[in-house]
């Protein structure tokens, strides 16, 4: 279960290394494996061709970097929204007046489901440069999430996304990844 940036990063590294291992196995060693024994009777393997194994691994690797940025940002967004809701709840007293209760519900709904760009904007007073750094990641994530259609925004690698999003969470003094 991926719930933190660190867990998302570990997933990325595991997926990358596993795919590379399979590609290498398919590309170089498949025919040398001991097919005469149990391996050759295992339905998970016996029908697989070396080229299939390598090609599937390449398909995974082709998109893995962008998927990592997508995943990191999803985890980040959920964490920031959750934190904002908690902060608002902690700072406001118990509300009784129906108008205030309704306003509070609207605010919570905006934080939970509204534009994440707006949520981030609220933190500009904390560190405007860092918010802009995160927005660059957000723009690239959006491009990936919408099928990489149209002109590519500034390229963001997984390492840069991980670093920026982690620094933002640290700046918020959020708990370190679980």
């Amino acid at each position, binding site marked *: 279960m991926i719930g933190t940036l660190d867990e998302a990063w570990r997933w990325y590294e595991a997926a990358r290394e596993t795919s590379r291992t399979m590609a290498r196995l398919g*590309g170089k060693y498949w025919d040398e494996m001991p097919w005469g024994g149990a391996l050759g009777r295992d339905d998970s393997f016996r029908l697989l061709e070396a080229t299939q194994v390598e090609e599937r691994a390449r398909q995974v*690797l082709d998109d893995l970097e962008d998927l990592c940025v997508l995943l990191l940002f999803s985890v980040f967004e959920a964490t920031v929204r959750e934190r904002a809701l908690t902060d608002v709840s902690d700072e406001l007293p118990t509300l009784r007046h129906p108008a205030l209760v309704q306003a509070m519900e609207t605010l919570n709904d905006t934080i939970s489901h509204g534009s994440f760009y707006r949520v981030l904007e609220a933190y500009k007073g904390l560190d405007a440069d860092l918010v802009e750094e995160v927005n660059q*990641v957000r723009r690239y994530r959006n491009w990936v999430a919408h099928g990489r259609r149209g*002109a590519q925004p500034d390229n963001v*690698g997984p390492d840069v996304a991980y670093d920026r999003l982690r620094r933002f969470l640290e700046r918020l003094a959020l708990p370190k990844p679980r």
Partner: protein
Amino acid sequence: MTSFQEFLHRKAEEQGQSSARERRDEWIAAVDRLTRQIEGWLRESDPEGVLDLIPVTFDKAEKGLGPYKIDGLQVGVGELSARVVPVARNVVGSPRIMGDGARLAGRVDITDGIKKYVLRRVLKDGSETWEVLDDHFGAAPFDRDRLESILQDLLA
């Protein structure tokens, strides 16, 4: 000037076309310099011409640059090959080498489709250099020795 030409000029101005074209041409020229450098190093390292060096063209479209075609390079021996693939002119992040005042101005990957080395173009005080990131995102200047070790890894 016809009304159509006026329309095109107005649209080009609105779209910042001249600056986009400058950035695009500048990037295409930078990648061309890089691939020529790589070809030059490989010709020195491989005087017998064992390696096949084949230009490969990529279609790209970047914000601020528009659509463009750019050449990379395929380096092969027998059925094994690695590609020099231009990824983007506009890259988020900071250079790991060259210190303060340096900025990133492009990314090119060298990959066999399984492993990948990321080359990042670094500009500082009007000079251009390339850094290479390894699997663990450690950076080093890109030079002939580094190119040879990358190809030994990718073509192994």
